[in-house]
Structures are given as structure tokens and as C-alpha cells.
């Protein structure tokens, strides 16, 4: 359980990091908190020649609000969000997701950027940020670009970063007045990777809903217009209109063949919808 040898560098600024990432010989992995990459290194599933520690870069450890968008640097930790050390434009949605990720010692080092780039389908931020309509900001030697999270995550453990590129920030739009949020995951043991995740972001007055079904086999399943789940119309009574059979057929059409899997995911989705109708204030994980 010891990693294969690697070199370690901790560049002090972003320009140096991006340059090194693009030009270093051999295989290079970026590390932030190391809570996803660390186990893979220890298990020797990943054997890079060079590990580039990105936590020395001040820009990546910042959070700010820009035109009603919360911009979180890639190295902001789950605990930073859980403890309210970053601004919140989501009515506490981010905070509740963060507080239930893994365990406190993991949250103290694990970062939102690292979690997204690792792109484990069962990780919380993949589903939550997709439902919130967040974007990622990517930097490389040729400048920066942004893209929505749902396009960034291309498969299990697979993201749309080109060689030499890195994720530098996540941009999360403010939740509008009157919007409702539900986020539920199912874990057999608290803190483990989820077996099913559901996130819903509803605007009953505008008749809009984004729904995400996560912890599936690939990227989270996004229903950018989730009105079919509510009989085609979303209003203040959305919770009573939720149609489990439509949700089930959506999952079947997406390739989820096991009826037990579909049942669990539909149940978790129904709970997320119910939670959106009656928001919880507790940061405690759901009791399985």
C-alpha cells in the first residue's frame, strides 16, 4: 500500500503550473486535497512520474461573487462550504451537499475542483452542480474557456480536459427567489459513495425544473426540462404531480435495465422532490 515513486512539485503561481503541466516529460497528475487521487496512488492504480500540487496557488483558494454568480476556486474544500466560509447564493443548497460528503477529515482536505475532475459518477458534486446549472472554468497555455458541468463530464472518471488543461474554478449561478431545491442520496453506510443520487432545482413560478439522476453508470442523467416528470406542467403543487412511472421509463430509456436499480433511483428522486416541497434545514445526512 505504498505508491510507486513519483516526483513532487508545488508551483507557486498559475502560469508556472500550466507551463509545467504542458511541458513536463512523462506522465503528470495534478493533486489538490488528494482525497480521490491519494487512494489511487496508494493502491498503485495510478503511477505518475510527476505529481503537481496545485494548492500553493492563491487564486485557486479563493471564492467571490461576480454578477450574481458564485465563483469557487478549484481548491475550495467541502469543509469550507460546509462551514459557510464561502458566500452562498443557493439558499444553503451547496452547504447541505458539502456537509454530507464522506467524512469530516476528508472534507477538510477534499476539494470541489478535485472531485469534479475525478468525475466519479457516485460523487456528490457531479450531480449537484449539474442540477444547479454550474459551469467550469478551464485554463491552459492558450487561455481559458468555460463549459457547463454536464458537458465537462463525459463518462465515468472521464472529463473534457485536453492535455495541458486544468480546471481552475467553478461558477455557480444564484438560485432565483422562490426556487426550490431537493438533494437526496442513498448510501448503505454513511460517508460511502452513493448508490443513487437525485437533485432537483425547481422554479415553480416560472414552471421550470432541472432534475439530475446520479450515481448511475456514466455521467449523471440530466433532465434540463423535467416537466414530463410532473405531468407536463410545473406549478406550486409540483410535489403532488410527481409521476414515478414516467421517471422509471426515463431511466429505462437511458439504459438502466435492472428494475431494482430503477426502483432505488426513482425512490430517491421522489424523495428529492418531496424535500424541495418541504425544505429541510438540517445538515445531517438522510438516514439511508
Amino acid at each position, binding site marked *: 500500500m505504498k505508491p510507486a515513486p513519483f516526483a513532487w512539485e508545488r508551483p507557486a503561481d498559475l502560469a508556472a503550473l500550466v507551463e509545467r503541466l504542458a511541458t*513536463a516529460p512523462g506522465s503528470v497528475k495534478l493533486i489538490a486535497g488528494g482525497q480521490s487521487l*491519494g487512494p489511487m496512488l496508494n493502491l498503485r492504480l495510478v503511477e505518475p512520474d510527476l505529481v503537481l500540487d496545485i494548492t*500553493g496557488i492563491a487564486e485557486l*483558494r479563493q471564492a467571490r461573487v461576480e454578477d450574481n454568480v458564485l465563483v469557487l476556486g478549484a481548491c475550495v474544500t467541502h469543509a469550507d462550504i460546509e462551514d459557510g*466560509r464561502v458566500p452562498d447564493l443557493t439558499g444553503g443548497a451547496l452547504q447541505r451537499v458539502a456537509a454530507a460528503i464522506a467524512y*469530516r*477529515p*476528508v472534507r*477538510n482536505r477534499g476539494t470541489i475542483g478535485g472531485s469534479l475532475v475525478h468525475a466519479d459518477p457516485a460523487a456528490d458534486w457531479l450531480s449537484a452542480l449539474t442540477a444547479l446549472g454550474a459551469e467550469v472554468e478551464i485554463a491552459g497555455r492558450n487561455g481559458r474557456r468555460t463549459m457547463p458541468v454536464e458537458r465537462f463530464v463525459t*463518462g465515468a472518471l472521464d472529463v473534457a480536459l485536453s492535455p495541458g488543461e486544468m480546471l481552475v474554478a467553478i461558477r455557480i449561478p444564484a438560485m432565483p427567489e422562490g426556487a426550490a431545491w431537493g438533494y437526496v442520496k442513498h448510501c448503505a453506510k454513511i460517508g460511502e459513495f452513493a448508490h443513487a443520487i437525485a437533485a432537483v432545482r425547481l422554479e415553480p413560478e416560472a414552471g421550470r425544473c432541472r432534475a439530475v439522476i446520479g450515481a448511475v453508470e456514466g455521467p449523471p442523467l440530466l433532465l434540463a426540462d423535467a416537466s414530463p416528470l410532473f405531468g407536463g406542467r410545473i406549478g406550486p403543487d409540483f410535489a403532488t404531480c410527481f409521476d414515478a412511472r414516467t421517471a422509471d421509463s426515463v431511466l429505462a430509456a437511458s439504459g438502466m435495465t435492472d428494475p431494482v436499480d430503477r426502483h432505488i433511483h426513482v425512490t430517491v428522486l421522489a424523495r428529492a422532490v418531496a424535500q424541495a416541497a418541504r425544505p429541510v434545514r438540517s445538515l445531517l445526512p438522510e438516514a439511508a
Partner: protein
Amino acid sequence: MSAGLAEPAAGRIALSLTVNGRFRRIEAEPRSHLGDVLREHLDLTGTHLGCEHGVCGACTVLLDGEPARACLTFAGACAGASVTTIEGLDDDPVAAELRAAFNREHALQCGYCTPGMLVAARDLVLRLPDADERRIRIGLSGNLCRCTGYAGIVRAVMSVIAARRAGGIAPEAGAARALGPVGARIGEAVAAPLRPLAERPASLAPAMSQDLAGAFEPAHRFTQAIDFVHPPDAVFALLGDIKAVAACLPGAVLTGKPAPDMAEGGLQVRIGPIAATFRGRARIERDEAALSGRVRGAGSDAGGRSATEGEIRYRVAPGEAPGTARVTLDVGYTLTGPLAQFGRPGLVRDLAGRIAADFARNLDACLSGIAPPASGLNPLRLLLGLVRARIAAWLGRS
């Protein structure tokens, strides 16, 4: 790195940090994690190592005053950090109250989890508003104890919290701290030079010699369908051509000359950050009349730490449109070793779908007389567990 430090030895990193209040300078391999640095370099063996992948919590220490996994914190990430181990909590009042409560409530037996448990419990005592059993159990869920059943531990932590709150000691409301991972605040630049790449030892890739004839009960199963734009007979015939199939499977290589019923080879796979080469053997059976077959394979990754056995049964049937074929694969596999520890069966199926799509495209091209792509370098993203089962199997059928 800090001024005044001598150049570190080759392949080592020099760093300074504060451990239990004392300034320390150490040299360590970059791959050393904080747990090893504490135990091997500083003789602080109170920090225990259990799973070494962040699950068991035995190695939990305080990093910049906050609990963190020592096993997932590499040496280079600790430059300038302040570390407190269980040895450093001797005079800590909260830890003293917890030790007394652990004794009173029989909250330990073998003691292996106790150092990490005390560090995690101390954090709960400081932060939780009251002695709520559920919150305490949730808070301790990242620390595994195999002796006590947790009952005594939970009672001990509850009693300390209750006593402190009754005595008017309020919970800490999350002290102000800078953003970012604990331990990484100082931002000191460190570097350990790259070894010349040629020094890397060549991986040993032993081909497994496994009995492929006996009964096999896989741990995981799934079904995968692949559609081809060519008729069933042509597809079935090509599936019997091991060399052609290997050429259509990105990353695959055959070693030696395949026989009709046996093939040996390897598959290079890339799954997110994981790159691995698997080698193995496969035994092939075909039923010409039923247009079906069975491939049974076994193999291991370079270094031989993960092992797999797998079986694919396939049937070629007419597709929906005339002149097309649909191949249905029933895949069963068993995986052991680090990959199994890391992987989850669900991820395997995502990979299966992606492989199938590429494979079908290449095979269709081959049937159309177009050369398949150069093998081995296609950035096909293969996935975890499945890898191996599938590899041996595909290869074989291939």
C-alpha cells in the same frame, strides 16, 4: 523549501513542519504519506495505519488544528504545516476528558482505532452543539472500530459533550480559517526532481497459468448488445478470426500465434487516470450452427497484483434492419486485488458500452474492407473492474 536546508538526497524532498509544537526538518520520498513520515522519520508510532486509502480513519491526525487523513496527505503537501498527533494531545484538556471517558465506558479493546478515534471525537466535542447520539454516530462514521460495536465510544463522546455544555463551555462555531485544504495554507513551493524516466523499472507482466476448463461462478454479470451493419453470418465469421478481432479492439495485442481455441495476449487500457496493461489467456469455443460462442479468460495486470477471471457468451442474431446483425454478450467476471478494491460494478458497465461502440465501429469498417485503426494508441477509455475480464475474453474471442 526553507532557507538553510541542505540539498536533499536524490529522489527526496526536504521540508520543514511543526509536529506537536516542535519545529522539525525532514527529508522524505515524495511518495511518503504523512503517516509514514510521522512513524518512520519521527518515531511517532501513535498514529496507526489501517487501510491506507482513507476509509478506516485509524491514521486521523490534526493538520493545522483540523482532523485529516495522514494516509492521504503526501509529504510534499505538508511543507509548513502544523501537525498534532495523539502524542501531542497528552496535555490537551478535551483529549484528557475523552481518555477518562473512554476508560470509564470501555470504549476500546484492542486500541488500534483509538488514536484516530480520539482525534475525531475531540473534533466532535469541540464542534457539536449538544450530545446528540445520531450526530455523534454520523461524526464517527469515518472511523472504523472492529472490537467495541461503537456503543461505548458513543457513550464516552456523549458524556464529554454533555459535561462540557452543562459546564457552560459552548461549541466552537467554526473558527475563521483560510480557504483550501488544511495543511496547504502556507503555499511554500517545494520540488523534488524528476527521476530520469529511463530509471523506471520495467513492469513484470506474468501471464497467468490458470485452468480455463473448470467451472466458473462469476461475482458480477451484465449483458451488452452491439449492433453491426453487416449480416449475421459475416459478423460471426469475423468473430472467429482472432487476429482481426484483436486489430479491432483498441489497445489489444496478441502474443504468440493464436490457435482456434486458445489465445494469449494483452490489453492496454486507460480509465480516467488509471493506465494499465493486462495480460492473460483465453479459451474459445464456437458453435457454428447456433452462431454463438463462449470465451473464458483469466489474466493479471502488470505486477500481477490484480487478478481476474471472466466469461463472455455471445450470440449473433439478425438486427432490426435486413442485412444487419445484433450481437448479445452475456458477461460474467470476478476481480480481485487493488482494482477490485477500488472499482465498482456499475462503472464496469459504462465502460462496456463505450468499448462496444468503438469495437463495433472498427469491426464494421473491417467488414467493409477498410483497415482498422492502428491498434494500441486509440484513446479508448476503458473502465475498471471489467477491464480484465473483458480483456481476456475479448481477446480470446478475438
